[in-house]
């Protein structure tokens, strides 16, 4: 029998190590390319959000248009914990993730037997409900003015205490969380759980007849993805030192979908990472040049969907695929559907 080729799945694949290493040096050169540290913080946070979101969209094929709700729940949970209980970084973040997980778990009960358009619509409806509550319940959330003066608690490491007040310090902390989340998700998508999710995306019915409780898997991945969004939300509330309802709006929820897809979330683990970076940089650079930047961005987006629907990662894979040998090693391991030969 022919030996089955091995697909090694290291804890930290080379691409990830490279990305994290490059990002770790960011504070040294960010200003010289005309950008600023805070942008790096937001980008890293949204990368976490995007990676978690793509677990749902790219890997499980569940288009959620209301995911901002969980990002927001995390942000509010973190802020309220600091205000009502006591200042604590890790406890606050844990609570944010748990709160978002619970919210996701409850919503997931309504969603997990839905597919396609009905799934998308129900997520919109629930997203709107969360947004509405955040605006309306202003005695708790501060309404449209937001929950303000959220502290950036110091990172307590035994005896040492590292303050996160500067954007550089916060950036390194966020980067660390990004690394942890990326490694965990990388493991997850190559684990049986991740493989089953992808199987469900490809053929839900067959997955059921092979013996998987599809409802339970969808529910679990929805809640898990919500928890990661909540974790990112808690970091966002620290970055902004406030929590605002508009991260829960339909528009904001649509933007994460757009970022994930433009980067190539359907074909690559790294799709959302690329998409987040491209979106934020385009917005920052174009936004300073022209007030109609959304028009240009929209046009590029339309052209991308027409001519490169697999997104940037897809275009890259195509390019690499056309160059013999160069990228062979990579592609099998990085695409959601792995160990494929063509």
């Amino acid at each position, binding site marked *: 029998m022919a030996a089955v080729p091995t697909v090694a799945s290291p804890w930290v694949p080379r691409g990830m190590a490279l990305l994290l290493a490059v990002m770790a040096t960011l504070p040294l050169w960010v200003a010289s390319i005309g950008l600023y540290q805070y942008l790096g913080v937001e980008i890293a946070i949204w990368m976490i959000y995007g990676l978690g979101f793509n677990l749902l969209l790219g890997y499980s094929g569940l288009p959620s248009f209301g995911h901002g709700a969980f990002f927001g729940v995390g942000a509010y949970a973190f802020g309220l914990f600091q205000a009502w209980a006591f200042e604590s970084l890790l406890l606050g973040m844990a609570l944010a993730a748990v709160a978002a997980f619970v919210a996701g778990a409850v919503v997931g009960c309504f969603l997990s037997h839905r597919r396609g358009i009905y799934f998308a619509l129900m997520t919109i409806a629930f997203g709107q409900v969360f947004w509405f509550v955040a605006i309306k319940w202003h005695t708790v959330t501060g309404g449209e003015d937001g929950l303000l003066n959220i502290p950036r608690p110091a990172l307590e490491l035994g005896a040492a205490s590292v303050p996160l007040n500067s954007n550089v310090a916060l950036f390194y902390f966020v980067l660390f969380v990004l690394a942890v989340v990326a490694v965990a998700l990388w493991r997850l998508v190559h684990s*049986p*759980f991740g493989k089953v999710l992808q199987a469900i995306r490809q053929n839900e019915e067959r997955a059921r007849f092979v013996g998987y409780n599809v409802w339970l898997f969808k529910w679990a991945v929805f809640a898990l993805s919500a928890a990661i969004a909540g974790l990112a939300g808690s970091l966002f509330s620290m970055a902004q030192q406030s929590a605002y309802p508009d991260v829960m709006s339909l528009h904001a929820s649509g933007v994460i979908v757009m970022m994930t897809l433009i980067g190539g979330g359907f074909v690559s683990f790294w799709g959302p990472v690329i998409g987040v970076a491209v979106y934020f940089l385009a917005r920052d650079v174009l936004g300073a040049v022209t007030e109609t930047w959304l028009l240009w961005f929209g046009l590029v987006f339309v052209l991308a969907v027409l001519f490169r629907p697999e997104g940037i990662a897809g275009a890259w894979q195509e390019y690499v695929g056309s160059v013999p040998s160069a990228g062979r090693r990579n592609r099998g391991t990085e695409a959601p559907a792995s160990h*494929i030969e063509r």
Partner: protein
Amino acid sequence: MALFEARGVHKRFGHQVVLENIDLSFESGRLSGIMGPNGAGKTTCFNVLTGRYKPDRGRVLFDGEDITGLSPNAIACRGIARSFQTISLFDEYSALENVLIALPEVRERGFNMIEPLSGDGADADRAAAVLARVGLAGRERRRAGDLAYGERRALEIGVALAAAPRLLFLDEPTSGLGVEATARLSEMVRELKHDYSIVVIEHDMQFLFGLADAISVIHWGQVIARGTPDELRENKWVQRSNLGRP
């Protein structure tokens, strides 16, 4: 006692009765056939037996346990696997992954989120063995969507086989295959007979008559005849339908 039994199963869609008072029983270690013309209710019958639809009346028993109305995954976990008439694979996965995901060993670890499910190790060997059994050795790394039609038919059975089922349902396995491929498939199923209890739906009677130990004929949603192939060759309906010629 029969391995699998359906008693008085009744299924309606709206006002249309699709299955009426169906009694079936499949013995362990045998290959049982279900045949009948298109639209006779064969596939609906399969769907009821494997949990896609709940019967309106009647009971389904597997190994003495009442499995009526259980979900498809619950039924699958009890050791019943099935293939589909319209090919139903994980198209973006390789042939190997298609089988891998269906292995009970992998299913038990379904919620493991940390250990990688890799293309080597014991699971992969097991999956490769299944592929070899359905004639797909050397095709392990091909994307299922890129396989030739005949190979996809074989993989369709392979995915069902992967579950190491105590009872294997095959839904029109020859559908869309040419004469030669049908003959190969016939050989393969004959091999499988040694190790598995099998139920096959077919309208290709020649195929079925050559393999089956017992056959039930369904028409108008009812079982109109049952018996060994030889007995059925004498059956009026079978003769009239002109399909039972050897």
